[in-house]
């Protein structure tokens, strides 16, 4: 918690990734950027680049193809970072639950900090979730964060001594 941490809440940059949802949530995100809600008022930008983003906004049930991409996006983001899962299908599958091609939600792949309920959530709910995410983000430190079952992954890959 240094001098600069105070300014975090003023400029959260968002990385938005759709992991195979119906696109409803993505339309809501776009409408949050548009004149009516204009989340750039709060300094939020949709960066589309994991290296420069602070908040990973995930929608969709995580299809098997998207799994590795999602994990990679998460690992490429520089700490401190927060993950926000938006919409019912990001919380365990929603209407896609137990389909043959999905992983049943974001939490099975990467650790989620904030959940935004709804299918599709309203833009107000999205902004509310972002405010919540910023509060969590301010508590985080610059330490490296790992995936959920980090030890197991390291063991299966056989790279214990590789930092």
């Amino acid at each position, binding site marked *: 918690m240094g001098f600069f941490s*105070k300014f975090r809440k*003023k*400029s959260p940059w968002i990385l938005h990734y759709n992991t195979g949802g119906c696109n409803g949530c993505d339309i809501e995100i776009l409408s949050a950027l548009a004149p009516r809600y204009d989340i*750039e*008022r709060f300094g939020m930008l949709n960066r*589309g*680049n994991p290296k420069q983003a602070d908040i990973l906004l995930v929608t969709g049930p995580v299809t098997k193809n998207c799994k590795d991409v999602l994990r990679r996006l998460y690992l490429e983001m*520089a700490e*401190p970072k927060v993950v926000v899962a938006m919409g019912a299908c990001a919380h365990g599958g929603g209407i896609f639950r137990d389909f043959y091609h999905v992983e049943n939600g974001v939490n099975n792949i990467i650790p989620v900090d904030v959940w935004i309920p709804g299918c599709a959530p309203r833009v107000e709910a999205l902004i509310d979730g972002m405010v919540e995410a910023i509060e969590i983000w301010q508590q985080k430190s610059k330490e490296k964060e790992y995936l959920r079952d980090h030890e197991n992954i390291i063991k299966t890959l056989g790279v214990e001594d590789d930092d």
Partner: protein
Amino acid sequence: MINVILTLLAPIIGGFVYGIERIVKARMQKRVGPPLLQPFYDFFKLMDKRPLMIHSLHALMGIMYFIAEWFALAVLLLGNDLLIAVFFHVIAVLALVIGASSVRSPYSVLGALRELMHMISYEPLMVLMVVALFLVVGSFDIRDVLAYEGYPILRLPLVFIAFLLTIPMMLQKSPFDIAEAHQEIIGGPEIEYSGPFYEALYTGKWIEYIYVFTFVFLFGGSHYWLGVLLVILAFLFINLLDNASARLDFRAMVKFAWGFLIPMAALNVILLALWQ
């Protein structure tokens, strides 16, 4: 004195210019837009990220870009040869290109190649503009240009228009934001920078604003009110164009620069030379 202050405070003033630009852009889209100090909030936030780098050359070239950009501005403002300032700007852009093409990300390499296309398009025009100013004023020195009694804009209208249309190429604005192309190659050369290293690029861009608008200011000669007016008009025009147009292909940009802008500026220079 004022030029020393302007040089030293260039990143701060550039940040304000960028903040104003973001507000103006938002208002043009009927949005409220971020607060004026938003670029500085971003700056402080990026200081607080975990530093990650690809390899040291890449990070070094990002910082080189910032330093060379600042140096080019210093050369320009502290009363030196205009041509030399133009060439130092080339060094800044080259640092960016070398850094971007030293990583394996295809978007970064693509961005670097497109950045070179930008350079091919606007550098000849910069040189032509400096030559045109020389023909009018009789000196490459910025102090002589700023002490010139007449109105350079009246004798170089076509050069001014050509330069106005090259500003989007230099500042990465639509329709010529080809190297940066946020929806397409996600920032181009800057894609692999993160945290404190991205900051160098982010701030270098602010300095570039000052650099470009200083050249616009020169068209006012010793009439500073005219220079300020031209800068404000150019600023609004660039933002309007940025909001109103879509991105072009890089071929269209090079064709436009070499087929239209450079002949136009050259015509003005030739007429001027014949006249004198």
